[in-house]
């Protein structure tokens, strides 16, 4: 769980600093436990199995999106194209599987097409960012609108109902009490974890986030790593699109609204630093759970709708404040 930054060993003698930052890495987890305890105090139903299932359902899409975003943020970039790629993915899947608008019935093959489409958009993100040297913020902002715009052009503002039992089954049919979509998102988490900890790409990501010049000087193919990472992220967002379409049973151009905010919040609240080089996909799992448990809990505790948003904002600030190791920060932007 405690993946630390590359530059820790730099401060050799500061053993106390190390202990402090290890503690900080556990802070999001502690926040999650505390949150669960408080909500249970108000409403014991929170701990029911049915509610676990509902929280897992609410978490599956933010988790898959968060995995992609974690990789990007680990290398110190940012990706705003989450909603664009997700929306396009959900619209494509809704038109390729058994649906209410045309005669297609591609089944699993459609899912593959959507993942490839997501990968292509991600690769374009990465290639434009690296080759044309445009900041990732701007490239992905553009790709966000390109994705939503294409989805719009395809559907002309209408919604398409999905009738494919396989896709709908992701949200409805269950294995060991949890919907298949939840298992799929956990599989995505496992894959992301392997990429992060057991592949060269994963190592390079941390190196890039820790210090790109050093990484380049030590022979890491920076451009290739960046493009590969954006491609990977695109695939995860497209998978999120498949899950979103499965959950609502339809594809439309509005399906992505508000998801970018949840994604970035979950990644950062989980303890992955926006400056790059520190954090990881397991932290993102904790972050996602904090965000979904909080919004589930506020309804259970009967918090008035008008203050819910404010509570969410305070929560973000508090979680990040707890997890930052201030000793190592010299500059705050």
């Amino acid at each position, binding site marked *: 769980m405690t993946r630390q930054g590359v530059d820790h060993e730099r401060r050799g003698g500061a053993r106390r600093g190390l202990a402090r930052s290890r503690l900080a890495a556990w802070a999001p987890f502690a926040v999650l436990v505390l949150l669960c305890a408080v909500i249970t105090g108000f409403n014991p139903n929170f701990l029911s199995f049915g509610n676990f299932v*509902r929280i897992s359902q609410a978490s599956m899409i933010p988790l898959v999106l968060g995995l992609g975003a974690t990789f990007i943020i680990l290398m110190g970039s940012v990706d705003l194209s989450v909603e664009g790629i997700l929306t396009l993915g959900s619209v494509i899947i809704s038109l390729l599987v058994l649906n209410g608008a045309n005669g297609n019935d591609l089944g699993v093959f459609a899912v593959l097409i959507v993942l490839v489409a997501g990968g292509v958009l991600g690769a374009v993100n990465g290639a434009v960012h690296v080759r044309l040297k445009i900041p990732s913020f701007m490239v992905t902002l553009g790709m966000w609108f390109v994705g939503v715009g294409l989805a719009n052009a395809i559907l002309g503002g*209408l919604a398409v109902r999905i009738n494919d039992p396989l896709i709908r089954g992701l*949200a409805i049919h269950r294995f060991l009490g949890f*919907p298949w979509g939840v298992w799929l998102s956990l599989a995505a988490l496992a894959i992301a974890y392997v990429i992060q900890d057991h592949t060269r790409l994963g190592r390079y990501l941390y190196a890039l986030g820790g210090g790109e010049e050093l990484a380049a000087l030590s022979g890491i193919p920076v451009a290739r790593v960046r493009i590969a990472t954006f491609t990977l992220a695109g695939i995860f967002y497209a998978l999120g699109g498949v899950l979103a379409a499965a959950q*609502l*049973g339809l594809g439309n151009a*509005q399906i992505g609204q*508000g998801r970018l905010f949840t994604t970035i919040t979950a990644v950062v609240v989980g303890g992955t630093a926006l400056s790059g080089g520190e954090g990881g996909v397991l932290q993102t799992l904790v972050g996602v759970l904090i965000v979904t448990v909080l919004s589930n809990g506020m309804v259970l505790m009967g918090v008035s709708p*008008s203050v819910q948003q404010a509570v969410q904002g305070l929560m973000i600030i508090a979680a990040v404040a707890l997890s930052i190791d201030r000793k190592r920060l010299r500059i705050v932007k």
Partner: protein
Amino acid sequence: MNTPAYRGVSRRRVIQIAAAGAIAAPFVARRGFAAGTPTVVNSIRSLTNPYHATWNKGGAAFAKSVGADYVTLVTEGNSEKGIADIKAVLAKTGGNCVINVDPNDSPDARPIVEACKAAGAYVVTQWNKPNDLHPWDFDPNYVAHISFSGVPYGQAMAEALFKAMGGKGGIVALGGIQSNVPAIERKKGLDAALAANSGIQLLDYQVANWQATAALEKTNAWLTQFGDKIGGIWAANDDMALAAVEALRADGRAGKVPVTGIDGIQLAVEAIIKGEMAGTVAWDPYWQGGMGLSIGYHAKTGGFDPSKEPKDHREFYGKGVVITADNAQSFYDSNIKSEPKLDWNDIWGRCNGQIQYS
């Protein structure tokens, strides 16, 4: 990206225009004759939502019926862009146009109306305008303002829901963005229905910002909190209602707990036919998109003199269509399966009283 006037045109429309152009090419001389016909313009929020997409179709159908050039402007939620695009069209057509606008925000209506008056164009506004801006203060160019009161329809849906529940039990309610006028009005209608039905208890009211995703989350949490106590779900629009149905479906209860929405989108009507929703209200955006233009067009081409019309023709509530299991199939057949057939000359047919400002 810099040609917003044509951004809203769908692919089908492009093909139609291309085909029309190919057919019309030998008759170029006749185009000069058509130059006297005013251009008809719809300015709407976006084409991403079914509501405004249908609005646009109605506008295109009206334009075709009179052989006028048709332009769609899209604000994308940006007031500045909305006003600038309208000014661009006024300049391009020299004021020889009719504009039917759903202003992005209430204050936008004033500069739009003033620009139209200055250019000699005719304008009809819908939904949003400041309370103290009246068509009769800008005779004859500001032809009419059309709106829909949310109160009676929010109430009608609540009544339909209670009826489907057998008149007793607990309900939960999903509201739109808290500061939106339609959200406030629809909630007011719900409250009125609750006051009149003592057997029904409102378990909780949550704001889901008109969005399906938020509605799904809220409904999931309610299923934990209230479980079987939920006898019905009232939602302030169809997107949220359909999401509530999906949350129920994941719980194995779709079709067992009645849900109502408002707006009358296709998927909601289908859900009513399937028995998963208990009701919705169709505003008929097809009518709004076409008739708004028709009213302006008739005024512009001398069909009537706006300054001689009574006030309840200048600032009026339109009529919504309440859809329940009783009429869902017939509504589907005549409005969704086939292109609606409206008499564009029946311009005052859906006047439902002068708008009241409290």
